[in-house]
């Protein structure tokens, strides 16, 4: 994975040709987003100041089209992580804390919301159990070990519910 810290070589590969921007679906939909400009800002170490990093679809078409194979999607993801670590973007956290809570407490982030789906799953033998308590504890230990629980607490400001 490419990170901004290790990115000087990566950034120097960029010749600001703008192929990424011309391929980008978001750039076509709104003038607020320009991946070429984000790489330029990264070179000046200013990318984490940019609001538009949150508009990236993470679709990787910019990387697929880039003539110099610059890891643009990775760069933007790394900027998001750094912003969340430093500032704790309240709006981001508010939007996504539900996903994190669901992952920690139930194990999945998309839940059944329709009785027809529930019935279909039952009839098809697809009622895969959620994590058992021993497995949850084991997962909890793992999350601690890889500092994910700490990371989620820092970033999302939430505790795991038992």
């Amino acid at each position, binding site marked *: *994975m490419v990170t901004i810290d290790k990115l000087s070589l990566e950034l120097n590969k960029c010749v600001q040709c703008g192929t990424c921007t011309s391929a980008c*679906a*978001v750039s*076509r*939909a*709104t003038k607020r987003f320009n991946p070429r400009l984000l790489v330029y800002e990264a070179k000046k170490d200013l990318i984490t100041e940019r609001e538009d990093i*949150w*508009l*990236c*679809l*993470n*679709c*990787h*078409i910019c*990387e*697929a089209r880039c003539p110099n194979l610059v890891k643009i*999607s*990775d760069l933007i*993801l*790394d*900027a*998001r*992580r750094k*912003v*969340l670590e430093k500032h704790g973007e309240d*709006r*981001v956290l508010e*939007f*996504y804390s539900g*996903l*994190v809570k669901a*992952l920690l407490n139930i*194990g*999945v*982030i*998309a*839940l*059944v919301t*329709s009785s*027809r*789906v529930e019935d*279909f*799953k039952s*009839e*098809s033998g*697809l009622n*895969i*159990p*959620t*994590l*058992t308590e021993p*497995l949850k504890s*084991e*997962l909890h230990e*793992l999350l601690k070990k*890889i500092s*994910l629980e700490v*990371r*989620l607490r820092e970033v*999302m400001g939430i505790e795991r519910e038992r």
Partner: protein
Amino acid sequence: MRGNGDIKEVVLYPGCVSLNKYPGIVKSSIEVLKLLNVKVRLPTSMLCCSRPLERLGIIGEEHTSALAHFNVTKLMGDPDEIVVVCNGCYLAFRRALEADDLKKDVGLRAKCYHIAEIIWRNRQYLAEKAKVKLDKLKVAVHVGCHYLFYPHGDVIKGEEGEDILEDIALAFNANVVDYEERRSCCGGTIVKWFREVSSSISKRKLESIMEVGANVVLTMCPYCLRTFNRVQQRLKKLKRIESIMPTLHVSQLVAVALGLDPLKVAGLHLQVPAQELEALLKLLTPQPPP
């Protein structure tokens, strides 16, 4: 090449969106694998691949890999082969399982395949078993970015057609229509926060599909499928479109072509509105005996 090898038994990792929103994708995948004489197991419990959190920047690649390790060792019984039905799960598991820290350092041996890769590899064999004709379908394929632009290695490119899904559709004699926005994103990953920008991207894609007269969208990603459905439902509510273009996962299209029940197996009633489903089913006619 991806998808080769003699696969006898797999763990099918169903993924959150497919399992809990469109379970017909999971059921269809199981039935297609069974027809290929592959023994299918499911995980003993469900734990998300966590890729949606990673692409938001909330967690890092190292965390996704650790959860993949937990999934494979604790919930799947350390299998040789894992089959996924979602491009996001594919990225999460394949990247983790091919990385040195899990493969060499931890010694995990599992390989990760997308169900589309298994179908692609066996497309001629499966097409010979088809009981339903797909020749009235005009298919617009949408592979989905996290397979089409998979950033960590090679994926299957088209042989007879432009991509993996076109090859499969062509094998079953469906008509594949090309469209301008074929390789663009569904727009779904930013929908929670930037709803208008996201909708505008999805709408542009769907308009491009409608312009060429397609009557079905074929994808291999449940998340993209959900995006197309959500956007169309919204546009229909606003009276900006009259009907919803049915979107099918590749496992569902193949299951239907093999003569499996479009409702009881493919679960199409859970994702295509009644009127549109009736019109779609009318396009499917029995294959004459050889």
